[in-house]
């Protein structure tokens, strides 16, 4: 609303009705405290950049490549299961497909926040996981696609040329976790759901293969990451490599906290605002996301270099433990999708722990590494 405001000799009163803000700021006291405590670190902090470029080596060989390999394997299994399900049209084959879908989601979530390199090429990140979709674009487009006579002969190339909302895991989830899925994937079904699922799975597999290939040692970006050189279009100095690693970790935690967990918090929070809720994989996805950031910060040696290895490992372990408890709850939500009291309480605790991780990273982690966490925030205009 506008404030009434006195200007010069005359008071101008604007009588706009007050409407309470509908926003959900989505940050806790701890979060505010984190921001406040980070502020004193204004101005670039440098000079402490560790000389050990083994960070990059470990990131490539112990984090990125294994994650990409697992995603590629899981996607290949997903495609095989989709093809089998389409051929066999049996409940068992559908069960296997659902299992492979869940495994592929988990494998994707383990590299979703590695926002660099092959995941970002050809818009793969959004093509694999178009979310959030509050306007239900994916639902409308899928309905239209299934009603199209050509859907039965859809290919992966066709899918790759369509809207991002039809290309990845959320689209496949709609097909595999709808009320009529068992019917659509059974013998005698004349709907094209099964063929469309195969085409989407093949598209996912093609992207997973490209990502896996893009992380191999001979990929130009990987070579540059391992050995930055002046004039490179990727990385010219080690500080740029370090900044990239740190940015992935910091932004990754932001995505988990501010986009995914925040979508599940506040009054009237509903699981339907969470990613992949239809298949019940919201928490599994976040768990895998967090593990991927633990790996990038701890397994690379970055945490050890900052003296925070034990602290960060403990905080990530605490978050994982809370997610485990959430997953073990007999009831996560009620019939309408609203969280039970136990779930709400655990989610709040989880967010506090993730806030703690963010504070540790924003504060001592980046300061010790000599990477300033902000650019505009430190020296704007």
């Amino acid at each position, binding site marked *: 609303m*506008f404030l009434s405001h006195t200007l010069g000799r005359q008071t101008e009163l604007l009588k706009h009705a007050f409407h309470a803000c509908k926003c959900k700021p989505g940050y806790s006291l701890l979060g505010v405290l984190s921001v406040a405590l980070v502020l004193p670190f204004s101005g670039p902090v440098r000079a402490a950049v560790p000389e050990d470029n083994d960070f990059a080596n470990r990131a490539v060989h112990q984090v990125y490549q294994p994650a990409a390999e697992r995603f590629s394997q899981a996607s290949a299994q997903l495609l095989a299961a989709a093809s089998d399900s389409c051929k066999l049209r049996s409940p068992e084959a559908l069960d296997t497909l659902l299992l492979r879908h869940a495994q592929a989601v988990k494998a994707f979530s383990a590299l979703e926040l590695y926002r660099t390199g092959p995941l970002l090429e050809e818009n793969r990140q959004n093509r694999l996981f178009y979310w959030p979709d509050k306007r239900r674009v994916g639902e409308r487009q899928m309905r239209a696609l299934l009603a199209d006579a050509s859907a039965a002969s859809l290919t992966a190339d066709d899918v790759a040329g369509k809207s991002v909302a039809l290309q990845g895991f959320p689209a496949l989830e709609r097909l595999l976790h709808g009320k009529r899925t068992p019917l659509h994937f059974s013998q005698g079904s004349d709907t094209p759901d099964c063929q469309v699922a195969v085409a989407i799975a093949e598209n996912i597999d093609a992207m997973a293969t490209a990502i896996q290939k893009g992380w191999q040692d001979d990929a130009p970006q990987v070579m540059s990451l391992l050995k930055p050189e002046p004039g490179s279009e990727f990385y010219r100095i080690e500080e740029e490599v370090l900044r990239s690693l740190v940015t992935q970790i910091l932004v990754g935690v932001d995505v988990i906290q501010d986009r995914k967990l925040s979508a599940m918090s506040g009054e009237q929070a509903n699981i339907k605002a969470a990613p992949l809720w239809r298949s019940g994989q919201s928490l599994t996805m976040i768990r895998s996301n967090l593990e991927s950031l633990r790996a990038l910060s701890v397994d690379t040696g970055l945490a050890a270099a900052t003296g925070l290895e034990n602290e960060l490992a403990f905080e990530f372990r605490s978050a994982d433990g809370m997610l485990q408890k959430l997953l073990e709850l007999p009831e996560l939500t009620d019939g309408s999708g609203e969280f039970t009291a136990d779930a709400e309480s655990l989610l709040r605790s989880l967010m506090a722990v993730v806030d703690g991780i963010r504070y540790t990273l924003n504060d001592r982690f980046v300061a010790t590494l000599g990477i300033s966490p902000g650019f505009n925030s430190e020296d704007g205009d």
Partner: protein
Amino acid sequence: MQSGASMSRRALLQLALTTLLPATATATATATASTSTSTSTSTSTSTAMATAGPLLPGAESTANLYISGARRGPDDYVAVIFDAQAQRIASIPLTARAHGAASHRASHRACLFARRPGLYMHTFDRRHPENLVTVEPVDGRHFYGHGSYSADGKLLFATENDFDAQRGVLGIYDTAAGYRRLGEMDTGGSGPHEVVRIPGSALLVVANGGIHTHPDTGREKLNIDTMEPSLTIVDSRNGRLLARHVLPAELHQVSLRHLAVDAAGHVWFAGQYEGAESVIAGLAGVMSIDKSLRSFSGSRSSQGLSLVELPADLQQRTAHYLSSVAVAGEHALFTSSKGGLVFKVDRGSGQLLEILSVRDCSGVTAIPAEVSTVEEPKVSDSFSSASALLTSGTGEILALSEDGAMSLAMHRVQWDNHVYAI
């Protein structure tokens, strides 16, 4: 019978309303005379203008291009032009950190300003951004980071600091003559930052930040205790001051810095608080051009300025620092890099609608309506509702839509303060 004073006000209002009519083809630069204005500026061409290369992909007149300054590494700054998919299509090395930009689409003219105290203004044809013409400030002036073209694109008005007189000026540049400096006019305040032109008119709105700086002391702020920020309306045809708002005494340390014009001709502003209070109003607001012109008397306008009420926790979260403002459809969008957030305000009611967290986000610009539906088939169906683009110091470019903020790309640069559609 009306008094002389009333007649004078009416005459002024008539003049002002005339300026709101579609601008004439040329705005004559009959600015108030000042020192060192008529000399042409020192120019240098980074590459020969005559050797324009092939047309930049996607740079046809209707294509959607964006420009932002960025940091690539230590003391390594560039200007990057990217397309509607957030894909880089040109990268221009810079000698120093950039800040704002301006463009005139019909004539393809564009320019990029150095960050204050700015010592360059790079001008270019948006179809051939590799061919920069560098304009340097005249003696006794430096650029302040922003500028705006006249309606016909023949003139460019740049905010500048007359640092010895502690006076804000708008430098006037003849775009067809290699951006020769024709003169200058007073902004009606000190420390001018952003200037915008009301579309279809010759009216320039200037955010005078009120902070004195001097090249001898770099970016040091010299008058925080006595600063007096203001919003002014200047007739670009003759330099006349047509309206002026000064915030009340208790808000005198809110430096008014960034502006955005909405479809109704209202100007939204974003400020940065330099004081020590924990909660302060006046960080954001809107100025009615019409009311501001009508109520201008003496040296001030008494009506036409409204502040947006922001919750105390949001004010604290922003650290009382708003980085940029843009208008997209029915919303005014404000970023705060210090708060790592963007918030959305309903233009009609001033109601705060939504807050989204985006680390180190600063640049925000509306996606121009005529090209908001991007051509790329893989994206168009799903992102066509996006109304604005956000840039962050993390290198991320995001699309803002009803779905929230969605990542479009992550570049290996740190995006600087502002992003513009050019």
